């Protein structure tokens, strides 16, 4: 019955709760003694589960560093592309570090922290000898993809590729291995790290020039962007680039060198 009561309250408090916003997020986090970070748990090696059920990866290292610098504990909440911004808006999480591309549309919803901490683009992983050499070769062919990836639309429009979208990477790669599509269009960073590290991709290659480079950003709630909390996050990301922390963590997680990280370090030094 308690839950029934809560349900009733839920409807009533819907309107009320929207108005209750904290005065200062940074103070709230320090007072609570923990920062809640939304991370991916299905995007190896940026954020993934180990067999003990812990989330690990590059972005988890970043989340832990943020917590260390604020002097608080870290709580990781697994998010997916479709719910991360809603979680941040609702206050369910304090920070997004979840392979999120920075673009104009999203800037209207969440506070993107500059400088960007990472960058990735689109490329295709295809079996060797498939005859694909340029993006235009995808014309009229079935290409596996992930639902909701920002580059799907452009690949379909510019190269007349027939996008076959799957819910997750395992499904898409399985379809690629079955020959259901000529290639799998996905983040170049992911493809590079897979080709470099995994023997099952020995007969595959990344035949195109990476396109649609998009910087990734960590995000805070929009109204915190110009407050103390947003400033603190900007300082932290700047420091990551300056100190070489990002480059070091990138390598430690077995990800191929990313020219963007070097560029940023040179620029900010």
């Amino acid at each position, binding site marked *: 019955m308690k839950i029934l009561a809560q349900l009733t309250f839920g409807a009533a408090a819907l309107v009320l709760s929207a108005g209750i916003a904290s005065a200062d997020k940074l103070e709230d986090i320090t007072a609570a003694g923990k920062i809640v970070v939304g991370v991916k748990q299905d995007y190896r090696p940026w954020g993934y589960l180990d067999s003990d059920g812990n989330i690990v990866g590059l972005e988890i290292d970043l989340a832990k560093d943020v917590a260390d610098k604020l002097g608080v504990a870290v709580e990781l909440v697994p998010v997916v592309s479709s719910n991360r911004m809603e979680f941040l808006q609702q206050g369910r999480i304090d920070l997004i570090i979840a392979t999120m591309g920075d673009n104009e549309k999203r800037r209207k919803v969440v506070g993107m922290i500059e400088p960007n901490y990472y960058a990735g683009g689109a490329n295709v992983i295809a079996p060797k000898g498939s005859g694909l050499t340029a993006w235009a070769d995808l014309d009229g062919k079935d290409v596996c993809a992930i639902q909701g990836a920002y580059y799907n639309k452009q690949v379909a429009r510019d190269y007349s590729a027939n996008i076959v979208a799957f819910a997750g990477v395992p499904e898409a790669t399985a379809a690629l291995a079955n020959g259901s599509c000529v290639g799998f269009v996905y983040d170049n960073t992911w493809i590079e790290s897979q080709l470099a590290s995994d*023997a099952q991709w020995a007969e595959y290659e990344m035949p195109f020039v990476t396109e649609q480079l998009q910087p990734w950003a960590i995000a805070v709630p929009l109204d915190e962007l110009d407050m103390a909390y947003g400033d603190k996050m900007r300082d932290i990301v700047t420091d990551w680039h300056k100190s070489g922390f990002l480059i070091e963590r990138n390598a430690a997680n077995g990800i191929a060198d990313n020219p963007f990280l070097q560029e940023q370090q040179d620029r900010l030094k």
Partner: protein
Amino acid sequence: MRASFYPKTRSTPPVKGALPVLLPYRSPQATQLSLHEKLFNGWTVLALMLGFAWIMVQQVWAQSGAAQQASVPDILLKWTPVLLKGFGFNVLISILSMAIGTVLGVGLGILQVSPVTATRRTAWLITQFFRNSPWLVLLFYCILLIPFEISVFGLDIPFPGWVKAVIGLSLPVMAYMSEYMRGAILSIPSGQWESADSLGFTRGQTMREVILPQTVKRLAPSWMNLYAVLTMATPLVSIVGVSDVMTLTRSALAAESRVDLLIPMYLYILSWFFIYCYPISRLTVRLERKFAVKL
């Protein structure tokens, strides 16, 4: 003297009055196998296990060339503790949804046979609405409309995703339960009402003390069936961002990033659901047979 007239073989029955002629009539139909009984039996389990084993063996053969990779059974075993936690979560969600849905559904079902027209109509409308809405849509509404935290008089009540999922799943359970309840009440012969009336019972008393106790055994099989269906529907919560066994399976697949793991892994999870739901289904069949009402 008289006893010697009877042959020795015809000994007295062990229980007084348990003569064959007094045993209840069993209709030949009641002993016939129902469709789901034909489909879900030991052979299905065997076929499932064989299919699973075949895929395992096939994997091992396919990999004989590339021996450096871990075998599929090893990987499944490695992830079992994590996935079991997720499965436990599914079971927890199903039990809580069932409990809430049952309590609400019984109430709604009683209201559906209320003598007050307005009450009856309202209960009917609520029942029909939730019974004919897709479960996933109800879940989406619950996840998106209920805030993650509610402040009531300065007290913060947190609403994690799984609580919302429980509420979302309990709504259709409530509606189905309401329909079962209405049917069970109407299936009690009207003579019961009349007799209770003639004994001076009020309507409320008749309901509580005469009718409802008799509906329990009529409800039991459909109630358990509903529970099995609900349990198998719990992976829906993975779509709305709750870390259930499906979400964790996906994450495990992503972490392993092995193309050949997809089918064995999902089959492994399927077999868990089967092993959990199969006994419930068997028990339902037994109860159905036991409580079969001959008209």
